[in-house]
């Protein structure tokens, strides 16, 4: 009996509170600390520019961000390349509206422990065969999708067949820690995270170094649901886009971290979608 009462109370507490405010999220990929503090500032900025209430909800994973977007729990999201493609496929009418300046030419660095003797090369070295290898998170563009694509392209083999062991560290910082400690021979990491940790003195170059850089590809972007205009009126998407593009306060931009935002469209991410299809991450 008690349990039924509790279930009812739980339901009562969860009545449908349809948010009248614009809610956004940002996938935590490069820096997950103090998310609320950092992104509430973005919410305040957008709120001032759009003249409506804007809220931020923190998420932990790519899949959760996509689900929140799909369920209209958030209407605007800062996605990675792959998560953005997935989200827009699930929400017809949604569109990519802005990306970071750096996101036009994003890169993945392959890094190796010094004991492997691997050196930095222009071509992907054959010597990585039969090593142990770690990706980042399973749903990451820079930590999974692009490295896997280049591995398959170069060697015509799935990572499982090429390497002695393949792991998923779950996070770029952990990839660096695992390769630096020698637990894995080789890893693939988001170049922005590598550069940040290098600057922070967390990387010992005598233990781990970059052995190959992928060609550039488009990555992070802001995507918005198409149906926002039904709610906030025609031209709302353009208004949001303008607000994002005109964000110039270095303190705000540091949250992403990007030097500025530029226009983006769904077509810019066609290469990401094609790659994801080619390696079977999207049906």
């Amino acid at each position: 009996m008690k349990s039924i009462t509790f279930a009812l109370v739980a339901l009562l507490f969860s009545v449908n509170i349809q948010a009248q405010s614009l809610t956004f999220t940002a996938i935590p990929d490069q820096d997950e600390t103090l998310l609320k503090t950092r992104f509430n500032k973005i919410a305040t900025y957008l709120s001032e520019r759009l003249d409506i209430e804007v809220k931020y909800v923190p998420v932990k994973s790519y899949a959760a961000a996509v689900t929140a977007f799909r369920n209209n729990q958030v209407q605007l999201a800062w996605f990675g390349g792959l998560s953005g493609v997935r989200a827009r496929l699930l929400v017809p009418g949604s569109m990519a509206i802005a990306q970071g300046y750096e996101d036009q030419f994003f890169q993945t660095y392959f890094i190796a422990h010094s004991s492997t003797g691997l050196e930095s090369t222009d071509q992907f070295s054959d010597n990585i065969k039969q090593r142990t290898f770690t990706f980042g998170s399973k749903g990451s563009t820079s930590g999974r999708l692009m490295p896997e694509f280049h591995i398959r392209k170069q060697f015509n083999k799935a990572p499982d067949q090429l390497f002695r062991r393949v792991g998923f560290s779950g996070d770029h910082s952990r990839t660096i820690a695992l390769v630096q400690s020698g637990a894995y021979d080789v890893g693939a990491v988001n170049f922005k995270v590598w550069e940040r940790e290098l600057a922070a003195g967390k990387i010992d170059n005598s233990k781990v170094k970059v052995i190959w850089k992928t060609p550039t590809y488009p990555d992070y972007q802001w995507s918005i649901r198409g149906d926002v205009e039904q709610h906030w009126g025609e031209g709302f998407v353009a208004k949001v886009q303008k607000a994002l593009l005109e964000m110039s306060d270095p303190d705000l931009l540091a949250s992403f971290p990007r030097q500025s935002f530029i226009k983006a469209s769904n077509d810019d991410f066609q290469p990401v979608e094609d790659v994801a299809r080619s390696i079977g991450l999207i049906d």
Partner: protein
Amino acid sequence: MAVHNAVKPQSYSTAAGMKRTSLWFLLIAALCLLLADLEVIRADPWMELGRIGLGLITPNFFATEALLDALLNTLAFALIGVTIANCVGFLLALLFNKPGVRQFCASIRAVHELFWALLFLQIFGLSTLTGILAIAIPYSGIFAKVYAEILEESDHRPINSLPKQQSLSAFFYARFAIAYPHFRSYCLYRLECGIRSSAILGFIGLPTLGFHLDTAFKQGNYSEAAALLYLFFIVIATLRQWMRLKLLPVYLAAGFYILPQSTLISLEHLKRFLGEDIIPSPLRQSGGDFTEQILALMDWCWQLLYLQAFEGVFNTIVLSIIALVGSGMVALLLFPLVSRHFFSRPGRGLGHALLVVFRSIPELILTFITTLILGPSMLPAILALSLHNGAIIGYLIGQHSNGLQLRADSSRGLNLYSYELLPRIYPQFLAFLLYRWEVIVRETAILGVLGIHTLGFYIDSAFEDLRFDRALFLILITAALNLSIDSLSRWLRSRIHRVNFERVNSC
């Protein structure tokens, strides 16, 4: 005297039974060791371990935003989830001998809390309801099983002596009253597990301690991570001080008040989830005739079975059996630390602290540390699972041993351990261990970081790829695996245990 004599021959036979069971497990585990991948990779972890060590001695309680909220949310999810599960589980326990109930319970508890949460995330979003259900559902299955077993094992003579055995008052006075102390202590233990689960739900985004712990640990902010871990240890270590039955309504009310109240209950999402998301993808594609679709479906099933499920089941079994035997060894080593027969009160305090640490560190973090040291293979996972589960079983049998009375002239030290306590706690030890098996199976789910392809690894990948049809298919296989383990361990227990009960009666 007559009773004693009657029991004796049988207790001989079960001592042999226990020995046989244990030896079989050791043998099978040894066989699994041959099949398992145990490569040690020479690594150089000292830089990272140094940073972790530095973090542990310089905890920073002010680095986390909204720390108090996270702590309170953790407790609120756990209290509400466990309370609901306790009630539902109790009702299910009463129906446990009805056909299908046992299987139903085994199936719902086969799925890791994180996966329940990921399923509900699709319907209710990142909301309070998702968190509560993710704890309440698997825990109901666990409560049902344990409560049913407690009822089954408790003394049946009072009820048998009553003229009307079917009445409600007969049940409450002659059965419930006897089992109540066991319910109570189990419920407290389950609440401790609930707090752990609640914290871990933060890993996928619910606003609990795990949310920040995961971040801090992943990003190498070890001072912040240490502070969060210490906070977590303190909450668990002091559980018996602040948890009072009388205060439960107050805690629950506070819990409902604290938790964020913005669930989006949408029939549309539910319909989409049941009607589209979990339908195997070949059936979703329109066009093509019926036979083609069936062929495509068979291909889909075969691909999943052949490429993921077979390997997943194999690795899950191998890893879980080795970790099970490892846990048993750790437990037998550690339990004297909290036993009054070996240590005085201050010594036991330290022992308790050590066990709280081992059983409270989330396996994922323990695995990350063991991986740094040993490199990626099954070895760090075995170590992490053995330490974690060994500490839990060690604690339970330590408590059990404290209830045993010794003769005034009993031996001391190693002799006491080997010739008196070990034989006396062994039936209970085996029972706990067998029960822990399915828990270990559930926990192997989250070891993808090592690239060990357990069933859980593939389920996690399916969720990450938003392929809920595959996730559900693999979850069903996990449930089937758990059903087999449940019947196997029940069969093993019935061999050992029949007599444990009679021995209790004869005392």
